[in-house]
């Protein structure tokens, strides 16, 4: 390489290409783990609880997650907040029919995530409040139920959800 300019540029070119490998990725992410048990007969969805939707902080998980399953990972923002979810007991997530019943729940405690990490939102009767059919799960107040059904997931409820009965009165 006779041209001194070109010769001198060789090292910087290698250096510059190396910069491309610099990774400073530190976004936060969130993923939903449906920890409800998978039925012995895994082909019978009526024995299972599907997580229909989840909202945490800024992340909406709109695709149902079958029992034992994990959702897609969604970009989120570092912070801490409780997660809100709709459970669809006995509903087959592969079905084209809408679930016949939705139960609003929320996590017992705020869930936090920092930058560069992934929050796993574990949902089961030990982590959420509001699933009337489960002993482990506590009960939502009516205000909490209204908040979830009217503000967080307003498009999924017509009428008023009764937190005590886990039923909708139209």
């Amino acid at each position, binding site marked *: 390489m006779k041209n001194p*300019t070109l010769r001198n540029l060789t090292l910087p070119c290698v*250096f*510059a290409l190396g910069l491309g490998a*610099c990774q*400073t990725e530190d976004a936060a992410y969130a993923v939903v783990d449906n920890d409800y048990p998978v039925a012995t007969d895994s082909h019978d969805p009526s024995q299972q609880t599907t997580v229909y939707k989840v909202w945490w902080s800024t992340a909406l998980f709109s695709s149902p997650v079958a029992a034992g399953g994990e959702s897609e990972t969604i970009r989120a*923002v570092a*912070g801490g907040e409780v997660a809100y979810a709709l459970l669809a007991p006995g509903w087959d997530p592969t079905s084209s029919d809408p679930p016949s019943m939705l139960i609003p729940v929320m996590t017992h405690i705020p869930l936090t995530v920092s930058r560069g990490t992934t929050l796993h939102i574990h949902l089961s009767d030990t982590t959420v409040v509001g699933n009337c059919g489960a002993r482990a799960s506590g009960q939502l107040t009516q205000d909490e139920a209204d908040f979830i059904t*009217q503000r967080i997931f307003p498009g999924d409820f017509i009428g008023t959800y009764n937190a005590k009965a886990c039923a909708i009165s139209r």
Partner: protein
Amino acid sequence: MGNLIGRRSSLLLCLGCAASAVFHAPLAHAAGPTDGTTPTVEEQQVTPPSLGDHPEPVYPPRALSEKREGDVGVEITIDEAGHVSDARVAQSAGPEFDAAALTAVKAWTFTPARRGDTPIRSTVSLSIPFRLASATTATPPAPTPPPPTPEPPPQTQDNGDSTLVLGRKPLSAASSTSVRDREFQLRPIGSVQDILRVTPGLVLVQHSGGGKANQYFLRGFDADHGTDLALSIDGIPINMVSHAHGQGFSDTNFIIPETVERVEITKGPYFANQGDFATAGSVNLVTRDNFEHSSVGFGAGSSPGYGAPAYRGLLVATPKWDNVKTTFAAEIGRQNGPFDNPENWDKYKLWNKVTYQVSPTSSFSIGESSYGGEWHGSGQIPGRAVERGQIGRFGSIDPNEGGSTARHQLFASYKFRPSENSEVTALAYVGTYRFNLFSNFTLFLKDPNNGDEIEQVDRRTFYGGKVSYRVVHQLRGVRFDTTIGADTRSDDIHEELWHTAQRNQLNQLRGNNVHETLIGAYVSEEVTPAKWLRLNAGGRADMLSFAVDNALTGSTDAQNPRSGTDSAHQFSPKASAVVTPIAERNYELDVYANYGEGFHSNDVRGVFSSPAVTPLTRARGEELGARARLLRKLDVAAALWNLDLANETTWNGDDGTTNVGGATNRYGAEFEARYELLPWLSADGDITFTHSQFTADHENGGGLALAPKQTWSGGMSARHTIGPVPGIFRGGLLFYGIGDRPASDDGQIVAPGFTQFDLHAGYRHRRFDIAFDIENLFNGQFRAAQFDTTSRLRTEPGIGKPVPAGFSCGNNARLATNPAGGGANGNFYGCDEVNYTPAYPFTVRVMGTIFLD
């Protein structure tokens, strides 16, 4: 050999001949006008370079044998160390003589020019005659540089039929200016936006983070992303017409800041060579033909306590050949910003240009630039979410905002001087552009389930050209400077607007194919009947033709643009007068009066929507101003101006509808001052006051939302020799700001102003350069881009539901009324308040550069 020397030329170095040699000291500070007739550079205490070793050129053997003689005009640049860093032929005597002259002068050494005790870079023009011994009667005089002189004004040589030499066009408005790289190198330069801040009265703020175009404020305009500010680089327009996000969208992120050599600034619609968008003003970035050195640089930066660092790598190659100048620059980088949702803004840029000096009177440039970037944005966050503690100042409601963009362009330019008093310039360009932007302004107002996120898509090819012819002639002592020119630009655009959720497309709202062509022609005649008076009259005619194809033929939305074709045209007269009542060595004064009409085009999709947008919006402006130079140290300028805009009706790309607005009037005053405290230390300051209003009073005093009322900028900058091995220290403490302004037309909601201080320090050595920048030195917690927006957070009451007791939208905010009319009646229709992008906090950047040759 001895015989050859005996017959060789006597080298007449005309360094001592004031008539043919000109020495240029570099600018001490900005505000160099675009001509030179009113130099603002402090030339006192400047010592010109003196010649050291200067081996004589070798007489070309063939020319010697053929007994040919010649004079080569050479322009050489002498660096701070006294070396010739660049040499070019300004006047050719043929390839052999040119090559011999260049070879010789590149080996010369000098004692560098000095400003006070500080060595400075300088440029010397000289003539190198090649004379056969028999024709030479004198031995060469001792080479002595001429006394320093400012850049010469257009010279008149009374040579019988009046031969005139072209100079750069003189200023024709008090608010016009030109700023060279030596000025903005004293500022923190992290991006080209930092360079644009040298424009007096222009405030730029970062908007939604990352690769999105900045928000521009100038002369009472919140020019959004560039609707009333014409931005260009080497004459190639940056503004995008009928852009998916906003008319005139000007993303300057594709520019590598180090390639910019000069910024040319005008304000108002007074200039015949400027067409679309040049209503509030125009800024043209002029790139350098070559660098002094090839180099490699690496920079890193961080806002301590906020996220991951940013980095930037820069590679510059500038191989030099005779008659050819080259610039090859490449930049890569990543930026995260201080946001809780990191920007992850990855970008690469290329800028390549080759300039060939075809002949002493003509040059041809060809170039290419490429840019690609993708990023995440944090959008404009509602103040109430921060007040309630739901998110932090650098938080985000929708972390999926952001997008990707790319711009690739080819360009070629040609400059030719058919004679000493005429010049032809031509420019052609073609480019492709891609843009995908995800935004969420209203959050959960329209769709409480999925959110209101949108995607704007823009794919286009743009191409165009410019040509101009300028001739200067003199008749009976009156100087006539005539310019005629034409320009054209076409855009073939495909654009879409989608409702999305987490970047997944839900339903398409708009889909259009657009073609538009703008053709303009202009003439400008400047008459100088006396040294103290210049008169300019001119005008331009523009015609816009366009076609819109609606791809959503099944849409039932009444505001969805129809398919159609149409055209519009406008004639824009211009006139200026410049009076120079004082033109003494220590006191110079120019008084300017300007009148002009201009326009900005509107998004042509709005022409076929309802209500319809006018394709061209006429602007009419007047200005009275003055520039003065006192004691060769103080430059001051002031301007009073007025601008009327025919209407503010615009197409809103965010929801694909028309925003109706009537005629507006803006007027204001601007003041600039620059003072050289010491030869190495200067201070400057600019302040503007503006009043903006709708011409018709809609029971709110004609209030006009977001129009800036006051802007200010200034600082102190220094450049001095320092260190045991002489190098140049440079530094600057600068500030800029904008006053409080109404965010809503009724003025009830206010966008608070701010003042930001930045610090720059740098040291340049022959072999390296290091720059240290601090942005937002005092860590001010203010808002950058701000918009009065009605939005709804997911946790707030549903639309139309009763407002709970105790609910508040927060400070500087109010409950929105029912958009269908009838007020709110105690129900919730969102909160109306300022949504904003926070300014960067205290941020440190370091950039090191190694020169390779």
